[in-house]
């Protein structure tokens, strides 16, 4: 095969570009094939094959926190779903709490008050620089299950009961009027937001109008007042916890010690990282922006809201996404403190069935899905706060 161009192919950079890619593909395929072949070979030697049929078998073990109905006679698949729901509970509760606390600490790190600044620095450095597993052990074995027994529970106003078997807090329970109130609140919020935006724009553009917050509150109050007039009842009834027979709690929301310790550990740990991200984001806005905003006569809150935060968010959101993903993945440490998350249920499943490979594949797929979903949502949000070029 003679070269028409006179350049031999091994001197042709285009050949090497393609050949490099082909070599990479061959390498990846070979390694994957070897690993897969090895797995198959080992499983065959043990007389096992890969298969997920076991998920239909009866699980025959109990799980202690059941967001969805489950009995031991249900399948392993159902048990897995219970674990997944428990993981979702902790992640959904953890992300907003960690964000709120993180923003608070992050802003405190920038405070002009010396004490507040030093305390938040201490918080961040201690929680960020110790392993999460140790912190979970501390919160669980050192704090939560050292609380008094139910018989000699601590009672805080509310009532909030603290004991080493459960933490019971008041929880709103729906009534017949709840639906109407929710609709009114939703409409009121939309209306209040619209009013607030309009008044703010008026204020910024023409220097007139003013009091956007007050106007928005008034709108919302109007909507809720309407709901009150319509239903003549409160939006929900407080379901208060009480002590039954002196040995257990009834009513309210009862958090297990494991849930409470895990939530506490994850929120406090993740908040330390989020605080630094928030601080970094705010500091990334150049000083000139602050000065310019003040120079046009904006009040401090408006400086933050209109000038600093929109720019800081661009820096904050991408690393914040990573922290959310970390929180979701770190929730798998639940297994150490007896919270029945998806890993805990998976461990029991493979202990009983011997299907270690399948269970690990399932767990990996689960966390991958959770992470990809979180990323997707955060990326959409990120796009909305990015600079729109005109």
């Amino acid at each position, binding site marked *: 095969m003679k070269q028409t161009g006179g350049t031999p192919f091994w001197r042709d950079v285009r050949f090497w570009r393609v050949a490099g890619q082909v070599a990479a593909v*061959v390498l990846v395929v070979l390694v994957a094939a070897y690993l897969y072949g090895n797995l198959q070979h080992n499983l065959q030697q043990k007389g096992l094959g890969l298969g997920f049929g076991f998920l239909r078998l009866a699980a025959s073990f109990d799980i202690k926190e059941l967001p969805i109905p489950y009995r031991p006679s249900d399948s392993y698949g159902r048990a897995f779903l219970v674990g997944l729901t428990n993981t979702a509970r902790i992640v959904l509760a953890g992300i907003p709490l960690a964000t709120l606390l993180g923003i608070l600490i992050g802003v405190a790190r920038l405070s002009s008050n010396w004490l507040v600044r030093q305390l938040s620095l201490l918080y961040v450095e201690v929680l960020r620089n110790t392993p999460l597993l140790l912190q979970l052990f501390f919160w669980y074995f050192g704090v939560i299950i050292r609380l008094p027994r139910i018989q000699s529970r601590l009672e805080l106003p509310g009532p909030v009961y603290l004991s080493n078997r459960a933490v019971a807090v008041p929880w709103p329970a729906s009534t017949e009027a709840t639906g109407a109130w929710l609709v009114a609140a939703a409409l009121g919020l939309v209306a209040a937001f619209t009013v607030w935006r309009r008044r703010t724009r008026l204020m910024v553009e023409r220097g007139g109008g003013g009091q956007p917050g007050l106007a928005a509150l008034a709108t919302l109050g109007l909507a809720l007042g309407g709901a009150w007039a319509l239903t003549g009842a409160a939006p929900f009834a407080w379901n208060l916890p009480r002590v039954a027979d002196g040995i257990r709690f009834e009513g309210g929301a009862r958090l297990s010690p494991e849930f409470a310790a895990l939530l506490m550990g994850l929120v406090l740990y993740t908040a330390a990282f989020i605080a630094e991200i928030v601080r970094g984001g705010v500091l990334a806005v150049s000083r000139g922006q602050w000065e310019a905003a003040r120079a046009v006569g904006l009040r401090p809150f408006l400086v933050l809201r209109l000038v600093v935060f929109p720019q800081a968010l661009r820096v904050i959101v991408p690393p914040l996404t990573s922290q959310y993903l970390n929180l979701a993945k770190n929730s798998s440490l639940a297994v150490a403190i007896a919270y029945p998350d998806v890993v805990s249920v998976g461990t029991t499943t493979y*202990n009983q069935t011997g299907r270690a490979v399948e269970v690990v594949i399932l767990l990996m797929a689960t966390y991958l899905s959770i992470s990809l979903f979180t990323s997707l949502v955060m990326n959409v949000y990120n796009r909305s706060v990015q600079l729109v070029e005109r």
Partner: protein
Amino acid sequence: MRGWKVLLPLLVLTAIVLAACGQQAAPPPQTGQEAAPAASPTAPQTAQSRLDIVLARGRLICGVNGGLPGFSYVEPDGRYSGLDADFCRAIAAALFDDPNAVEFRNLTAAERFAAVQNGEVDVLIRNTTWTVSRDTSVGMEFAPTIFYDGQGMMVRKDSGITRLEDFQGKSVCVQTGTTTELNLADWMRRLNVAYEPVVYDSIDATYEAYAAERCDGVTSDRSQLMARRTVLPNPDEHVILDVVMSKEPLTPAVAQGDARWFDVVKWVVFATMEAEELGVSSRNIGQMLASDDPQIKRFLGREGDLGTGLGLTNDFVARIIRHVGNYGEIYDRNLGPDTPFKLDRGPNDLWTRGGLIYSPPFR
């Protein structure tokens, strides 16, 4: 027409062929850990028995737990104590007339069978339950049971709980394990009791949580509950319920396919049981050796050739009894009334006294 455009499909083709080869030619793992269990059922009856290897080596390598007081536990001075450890010593005494010719290896639950299969240990005496799957597909051969255990439940004395039925609405600490959760769930389902299992992944966390009163009860093998109770802050405040939720016959194991070695381990264990039944102990072994009772003469090797038939010396029983003692002595030394465990013989008593300890005749 560029040369490399023709070459590309060729490269891809080579890749596919190579990949296919890779898949077929994946070499069998030689680590032993994975391969061992399946290889054993078809393992050839090799000319060289493990017995010859041990005798040539001059000491026995015994796989134990090492962390379970009363069964096998490393004392502060480095000595191993416990029922399992003493049976290792009994085998060494029979082989070498020296109970200290043992090298102990601590094994985790996950390592133990692989360690037997690849020959890392000669015999496994590690509170291991004899089950059909371990006897067959895992490729073990189980010698007689040295301790009849079962899953039990420990509660606080002042809790008022006396039966599993009392667990309605109560919580149970449990370590995730082979079938502990399953046995518990089965029993509670049968009794129709709604309870709360609090599942930990480590043994220390489980008992730590129970000690902190996170749970009303803790479940595990009864032997483990006994052992763990001695290290709880106030051992006397805890009681182990009578209920037994599963059968856990703890049994020594050797690799399948080596009948000579299996026979040695089996009959060493039986010898301790037979000795107790015949009333032969380390205290009276001197007198017994002078006994005129033909049964005892045969048992201790002064008549017949029971020992040489096993590939041992004729006096192997006398060696075991002199150095380690009979089954009752071993039991009392490690678990009996003078130990912190104060464990009744229960099912581990001689069959003549209503227990399950029974040796086939020595004749």
